[in-house]
């Protein structure tokens, strides 16, 4: 039975279902229950934006652990526990905070299996907020997906809607490799039909939310919606655009993109991240290598500029790639 759920609630439900199913799943993070050690309500917060609300009531403080403000220690502990048979889901509130615990993620979790000659599994999920539009400024708004995607040994997921968020998070929890699960804070309120039961969406399978023949727009996260908006506009101009939602960035379903470009001959890669060494440049490079002959126009990256995220809405709205920038890029390719 599908209900109309927000992405926030879909994520909560995924955690709930997996915790019910599997006693080795624990969740931890700063204020993910809230109120620890105090005299007021337990579960006072359920995470800074309420995503994990209600879990402590169902599973207790042994499985829903508030942490001190020591990301290296508790993210590392989640990784260590994963290497010892638990399946921790650790919240890194804003993934921008990765800078204080990146070693545990990229030199430890990501490399155990390889360094140890295959004899390690680290089924940890690190979930946190990404992206702009919240007026949260330079240190709370970044789209650091390219950095995580660069690292062998990590899997990187960034859903664009509530349905995918639930299926991908359940897959992430059941997955036996370390997963960075990127939740766009400006999509938390977005609604979709979401089945009540557990389901998984496999990694490395892009979705095609809109089919078309004239050009391919590749996006992920919030940019999928901008791409679809651009496609609407272009449809009115009789430009028939295909939109691909990558869903997972590592592994990446480059085949679907290549097939699409072989059909359309045109590629616009949209990325909320900064431009250099971005997902957009990665997609363009891979696709050009594989579908060069089919390409009718120069591929184009639409990304945030090479600047930190500005605070003021006046600038942040210009910073985040817009539907009109995307549409304009396609129009140019059609000429």
């Amino acid at each position, binding site marked *: 039975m599908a209900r109309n759920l927000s992405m926030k609630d879909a994520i909560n439900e995924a955690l709930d279902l997996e915790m019910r199913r599997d006693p080795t799943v624990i969740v931890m993070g*700063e*204020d993910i229950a*809230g*109120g*620890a*050690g*105090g*005299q*007021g*309500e337990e579960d*006072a*917060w359920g995470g*800074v934006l309420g995503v994990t609300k209600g879990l402590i009531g169902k599973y207790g403080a042994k499985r829903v652990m*508030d942490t*001190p*403000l*020591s990301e*290296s*220690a508790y993210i590392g502990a989640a990784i260590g526990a994963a290497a010892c048979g638990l399946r921790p889901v650790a919240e890194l509130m804003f993934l*921008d*905070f990765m*800078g*204080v615990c990146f070693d545990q993620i990229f030199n430890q979790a990501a490399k155990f299996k390889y360094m140890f000659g295959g004899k390690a599994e680290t089924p940890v999920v690190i979930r946190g907020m990404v992206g702009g539009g*919240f*007026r*949260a*400024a*330079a*240190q*709370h708004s970044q789209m650091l997906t390219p950095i995580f995607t660069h690292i062998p040994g990590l899997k990187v997921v960034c859903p664009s809607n509530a349905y995918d968020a639930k299926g991908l998070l359940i897959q992430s929890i059941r997955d036996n490799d370390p997963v960075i699960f990127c939740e766009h804070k400006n999509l938390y309120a977005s609604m979709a039909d979401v089945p009540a039961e557990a389901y998984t969406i496999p990694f490395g399978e892009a979705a095609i939310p809109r089919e078309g023949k004239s050009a391919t727009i590749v996006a992920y996260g919030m940019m999928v919606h901008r791409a679809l908006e651009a496609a609407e506009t272009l449809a009115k101009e009789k430009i028939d655009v295909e939109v691909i939602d990558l869903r997972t960035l590592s592994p990446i379903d480059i085949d679907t993109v290549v097939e699409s470009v072989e059909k359309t001959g045109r590629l616009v890669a949209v990325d909320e991240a900064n431009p250099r060494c971005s997902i957009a440049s990665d997609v363009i490079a891979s696709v050009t290598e594989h579908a060069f002959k089919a390409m009718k126009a120069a591929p184009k990256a639409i990304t945030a*500029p*090479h*600047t*930190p995220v*500005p*605070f*003021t*809405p*006046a*600038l942040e709205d*210009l*910073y985040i790639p817009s539907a009109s920038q995307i549409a304009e890029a396609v129009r140019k390719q059609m000429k």
Partner: protein
Amino acid sequence: MSNNPFPLPKEKLLEAYTKMKTIREFEERLHIEFAKGDIPGFVHLYAGEEASGTGIMMHLEDKDRIASTHRGHGHCIAKGVEVEGMMAEIYGKVTGSCRGKGGSMHIADLSKGMMGANGILGAGAPLICGAALASKYRGDGGVGITFFGDGASNQGTVLESMNLAAIWNLPVIFVVENNGYAESTSIDYALAVDSYIDRAAGFGIPGVTVDGTDFFAVYEAAGEIIKRAREGGGPAFLECKMVRFFGHFEGDAQTYRAKGENEENRANKDCLKIFRSKVTKAGVISDAELNKIDDQVLARIEASVQKAKKDPLPTAKDLLTDVYVSY
């Protein structure tokens, strides 16, 4: 009004009161304006904690530097950053201290020795070690103060910096502003040691705990350790125990608090009330004098809000500037 029992002359007491009151009204007003929906982003208010920043900053000059936190408005004001620029910044205007690019969590004014509010917990501690190193290198007698909360006191950066400051004998004061909560989490959960003084001792740094709602307690303790640091005596640790009047950030329902906690704080732990009562009871300053300051402060805040609302926004050309000195 002749016998002044306080460690500061009357004009300095008036200055301190003005700073504290300015912080208070700045924050009270933001609380109201935020509720109206006019202010973008996250806002963390310093109301209730004024005596800490002010008591310390009364000892500082422009050459002294501070590194602040996400809850930085009070530190900015106490260190001399212009209220008008701050207000405009929080409204995202091009006239703001950071031309609208930083917002509440990133207000800075290096010319005043204010090295920035900071959105990353504990990040100021290494930075202030560097500031102090620069002062020591030049021999200019400057000190560095890094502020962090009880929650952030568990960040590796803060802990590493304590060791660095100790072995390099840097003129750094580590100030933990202990308001009992990190977001919704009580310090009783996050700290296993009884006292921050023990923790500081574990790094070879002398420490002192004071009642952070008492301006004079903060002022005196800070004075001593700042003087020592200036004279080459090395780092020190200061714990200010205090209360935060509002939620963690604006929008926080604060259900983690005990019943009546906020009311009790407002009634009995209001550093402004405590200051007022001390200086008036001692007969050094009259209520009328303080009321006059109150009026001036309120007018200034009102004007800064009105100006901020009217000020222009940055425009497209501002998006790409200020990333590099040259590129």
